[in-house]
């Protein structure tokens, strides 16, 4: 009996049946793994409106967009001055490293440096690009207000409490920080003179 068996045909059938079984088993994993990705209602691009005129000069507000925290800062003239003059200390002074740190409207060097449509109103995602903590706002320069939690030549900006990343007043990451990138910008536009639509 066995002599007559066609082994190559048998092996083919084994492999074909086994292979199909494996594909089927793999396919059943799709709905299970798929179910773990963000649901449709979570994904639905939610937009947030915010009236930036409610932020007084020098103030920082944290708002929410898609469950993520967002910084809105109204920078004073003095703060804007302190954005300049330390490009050599920054990892990515012109915000060019990846898509998430730049936007279409960044069409001039000025806008790349201030990272804002209206220079005084900075709007950025508030998650540290290292591991996602919310950096602390330490806007005044020097160590007077912040002690040695900031470097001696501190020009004002953010300090992340988790692993010590620093960002300047344009939310650009300072050399030596564990964070790889500047704080991300997200799409936004001015609906009126003072109301922005985020998302």
């Amino acid at each position, binding site marked *: 009996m066995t002599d007559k068996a066609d082994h190559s045909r048998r092996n083919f059938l084994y492999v074909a049946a086994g292979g199909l079984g494996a594909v089927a088993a793999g396919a059943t994993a799709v709905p299970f*793994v798929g179910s*773990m*990705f*963000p*649901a449709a209602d*979570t994904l639905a691009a939610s937009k947030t409106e915010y009236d930036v005129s409610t932020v007084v000069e020098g103030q920082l507000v*944290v708002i*929410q967009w*898609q*469950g*993520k*925290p967002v910084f809105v800062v109204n920078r004073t003239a003095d703060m804007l001055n302190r954005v300049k003059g330390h490009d050599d200390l920054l990892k990515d002074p012109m915000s060019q490293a990846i898509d998430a740190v730049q936007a279409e409207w960044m069409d001039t060097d000025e806008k790349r440096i201030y990272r804002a449509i209206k220079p005084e109103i900075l709007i950025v995602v*508030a*998650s540290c690009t*290292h*591991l*996602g*903590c*919310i*950096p*602390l706002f330490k806007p005044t320069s020097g160590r007077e207000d912040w002690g040695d939690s900031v470097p001696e030549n501190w020009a004002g900006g953010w300090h992340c*409490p*988790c*692993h*010590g990343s620093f960002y300047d007043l344009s939310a650009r990451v300072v050399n*030596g*920080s*564990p*964070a*790889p990138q500047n704080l991300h910008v997200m799409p936004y536009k001015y609906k009126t003179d003072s109301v922005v639509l985020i998302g």
Partner: protein
Amino acid sequence: MIEKMMNTRLFHWVDERTQLGSIIKSQLTEYPVPKNFNYMWNFGSLALLVLVLQIVTGIFLVMYYKPSAELTYGGYTVAFDSVERIMRDINFGWLIRYMHAVGASAFFVVVYMHIGRGLYYGSYKGPRELLWIIGVVILLIMQGAAFFGYLLPWGQMSFWGATVITNLFGALPVIGEYLQQLLRGGFAVGDPTLNRFFSLHYLFPLLLAAIVGGHIHALHVVHSNNPEGIDIDQEKETIPFHPYYTVKDALGVGVFLLGYCYFVFFNPEAWGYFIEVDNFVPANNLQTPAHIAPVWYLTPWYTILRTFENKLIGVLMMGGSLAILFVLPFLDRSKVRSARYRPVFRQMVILFFVSVVVLGYCGHSAPSATLKIVGAIATSVYFGFFLLLPFVHKFEKTKPLPEGI
């Protein structure tokens, strides 16, 4: 007592259908154990005890715990409030929760001692390589279970710890972003994350129970190592597990329970080491606590992560520091097991233990320039141990091994 029980008619009835009698004999009353164990061999049975405690207290907590990040009228969340209700209103809820929270730390104390024992006495070496590897799997699943569990009370530390750790996966190239979304079920840690962590927090300990079964089975095939680290005469140099080691393990349980009860009843937060102070504050996704650090048992690995400025390298080194434990049995080429007879290895392994403690201390403290250097040194010592190990047998003069025990 066991003999008496085994002579009853009921036992015979069961035995005829399951061979329970021969299982009891081969695994307990006639299972041979080296006669020279020291107290470092008590931690295995303690780990089993704590696993059972965690599963039992966990199942009772689930009867009242509610995994939801929905806001309540009080301005907190359903999850946070349900834990507070367990603490204040449920009969003995405070006790069960503290047993569980203290139990998590106790679990790691016991397991780290157990692992340290294995390192010092060379228990990872042949023929026990697979036994060791199963142990490393247990360690990883435990760390996962504890991480998932820590999110459940939905306090500040829960939230931000989970944010940081899920971001770690985001650092991996290509798959990182998907993996992160898979873990979170959204763009940030939120309600979907809480629900899936709850599901996995239930699953992992049950997985653990099954794998611990495999660990013990593997042990009973290759048998225990001993403080001298030598192969022994399975007849002359052993004593039966029961009653000799059941009694010794029972003594260990008594001592352990004294310490455990002290913490459960008098010091459940353990000065912020077992339950971090910030976790009494409800989660707030718009504000990071001033200093975030994982619970003590994860801090050594957290320091390794922080040591590297490049995020991806940090993540890989942290993963590598755990993964390297898998290949330890194959890195060490010496014929001698126990550090008692290996003067060079003995220094190395003690230095390694010190490096883990230093790493743990650095990870628990707020980052500073000095600690960063200390952490970097400790990280090099940690990895140096594994890198040097394959060469030690070439120059190490081992001491003469005893003939028997």
